[in-house]
């Protein structure tokens, strides 16, 4: 059973979003997603300063099984990328909700957070797969 923290929001494409409470969010891929991908060997990070639309492709995550695009859960500007993943991409597997975070965004519209899935809805989606 995957770990799905109740304090986070989620997308149907298996990203998690943490509301930092100051108009910014931290995001990464869920425990379910990292389990699915297998050992992560590379994360292509977004450039700081890049503006993203909701649903826009912003990077690539590559595992021993497959390469898959990463999508912005919400519109905003990239204010930080987790450069530690360049040397230790396996952190995405080991701690997907902590050290395995991928980027931080300054939201274009903080209210859009409400449109994401809560933990209960995401758990149902993950179970259905």
């Amino acid at each position, binding site marked *: 059973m995957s770990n799905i923290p109740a304090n986070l929001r989620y997308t149907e*494409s298996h990203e998690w979003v943490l509301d930092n409470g100051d108009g910014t969010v931290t995001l990464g891929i869920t425990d*379910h997603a990292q389990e699915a991908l297998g050992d992560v*060997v590379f994360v292509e990070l977004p450039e700081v300063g890049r503006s993203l639309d909701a649903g826009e492709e912003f990077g690539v995550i590559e595992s021993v099984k*497959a*390469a898959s*695009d990463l999508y912005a859960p919400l519109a905003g500007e990239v204010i930080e990328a987790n450069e530690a993943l360049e040397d230790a991409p396996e952190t995405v597997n080991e701690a997907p909700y902590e050290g395995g975070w991928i980027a931080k965004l300054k939201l274009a519209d903080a209210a859009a957070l409400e449109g994401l899935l809560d933990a209960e809805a995401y758990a149902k989606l993950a179970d259905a*797969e």
Partner: protein
Amino acid sequence: MTPACSLERDSQTLHRPSVAEGLALEEALLESICHGEGDFGLVAWSPQDRALVMPRRHERLEGFPEARAALAAQGWPIQFRSTGGTPVPQCPAVINVALALRCRVTGSAAHLEWGYRRLGMPWCDWLSELGVTAPNLGEAPGAYCDGRFNVRIGERKLVGTAQRWRRVRGCRDMAMLAHGAMQVGETPETLVGVVNAFQAAIGDPERFSPASHIALGQLLPEARVEAALPGLLARLAEDA
């Protein structure tokens, strides 16, 4: 001795692009699914030229520029692909088949494995039909770019496989590109030697073994592979 496996020219089935053009064909196939232009696509190609193809992340390795120059000097320029894995040689002795599908699922483990079986099982059936004994899916310890879903003969790798997943624009559906590269001609020593040359040039001590690979020409020296290729494509298209 180089196996005398046949690769006829001028086929409507098998494209004969450069490596760069072949990789672009696959990318275009995936993009067409992403743009909703279809739910299914297949492309088969065998390059006219040679290259050592790897994910772009290798570009970040220390010593990469020197390794790139060294391989180019040996006639194996480095090119990049969008699927994962590690370096794989592309040359006229290799046939590539890429299968692209629109999937009403996400890229979870079950679906990744489904994707590999969706490509690999028809490939095994086709090989059996050609007369190859007991093709199967699995790891090939000692092979370059090894994975759980190679098409193997015994434990020797004949077809390497990889996947790329991307979202179909404007909806939740996903587009999957599953790719297989089958060594038809040349000997495993030749292609493994190219990968090991890169390993040496980049300063990575891992070396791969020709004994972990096999070419179709070693199994079926008289086979007219290109003439049989429509059978593989038809099998891959059956469930589309």
